[in-house]
């Protein structure tokens, strides 16, 4: 039992520092953002209508998040996938997710029922219920934890950042000798 606990502890420490699991989390969450951003960007008007359903922002300013959020998701999703500016991208993802979670929670309290327009998973053929509810709040909290893991990691395998750093170290190597 103690051995199992020790292994789990080591695994968590490794994930927290950054191992292949962290890389999988980064690429998967990045892909999800890229995917949802792509569909939102393809139909800005529909996404604007989705935001309007939340009844939190005044109608006059709805146009701005409708125009910006899809491209923000596209950029941070791409950055996470290729592994460049990972800390900033995951930080923006956390802020974005926190915002979505608060918006959903407010509408859950209000008793509203509509499609959240979150990840557009239905378009992938994945039949996930995206109607406003507590399950979406929990799901978003899980995503926040996943982005936090990526944000907190010190090492990122298969990333552009890692490649640049390794290259720099190689360049410094011979001159240091």
């Amino acid at each position, binding site marked *: 039992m103690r051995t199992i606990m020790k292994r789990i502890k080591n695994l968590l420490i490794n994930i927290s520092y950054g191992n292949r699991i962290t890389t999988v989390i980064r690429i998967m969450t990045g892909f999800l953002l890229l995917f949802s951003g792509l569909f939102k960007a393809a139909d800005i008007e529909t996404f604007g209508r989705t935001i309007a359903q939340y009844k939190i922002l005044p109608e006059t300013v709805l146009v701005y998040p409708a125009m910006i959020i899809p491209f923000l998701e596209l950029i941070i999703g791409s950055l996470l996938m290729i592994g460049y500016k990972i800390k900033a991208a995951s*930080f923006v993802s956390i802020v974005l997710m926190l915002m979505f979670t608060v918006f959903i929670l407010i509408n859950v309290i209000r008793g509203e029922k509509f499609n959240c327009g979150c990840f557009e998973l239905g378009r992938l053929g994945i039949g996930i219920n995206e109607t406003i509810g507590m399950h979406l709040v929990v799901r978003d909290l899980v995503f926040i934890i996943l982005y936090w893991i990526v944000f907190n990691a010190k090492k990122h395998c298969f990333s552009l950042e890692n490649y640049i750093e390794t290259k720099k170290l190689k360049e410094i190597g011979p001159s240091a000798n």
Partner: protein
Amino acid sequence: MNLINKKIIRDAIYIIIIAAFLGMLINIFHPKGYSIVTKTYQKSKKIIFINLDEAKIKFDSCKSLFIDSRSDGEFKDIHIKGAINIPSYPFEAAEKKIKNNFELLKSNVELVLYCSGSHCGSSFDLAVKIIEAGYKRNIYIIDEGIPGWINTGYPTER
């Protein structure tokens, strides 16, 4: 341990700025994008230009209030029969007169405005002022103005 440092904040701001710029740029050419228009343009969608024949139909229906937006002197010289005068300029005086006559303006009549011609602009300015005062329905402007009305021989008074 300082998890969020200045570099992360700066990079995050750059990402947001790039996304905002990209979003607004692509939105311009996007077939399903938003169009950002000025408030004056929005108001102008309620302002409809009509020709003399359409104006005459409204005149004969007796359900329209004709408003002359020219100066007091020009109005006294000649105006469309039954029209009232609300000069567009100075703006302060126009706003005051609109406010004083607002009950009449929002009564169950259509507003038909005119000035010295199709490019005089004062009737358009007056229409914007009336909408700003809270008028909700469409406002009509006679494109040819009073010269066209006189030339056609439609009823006028002095």
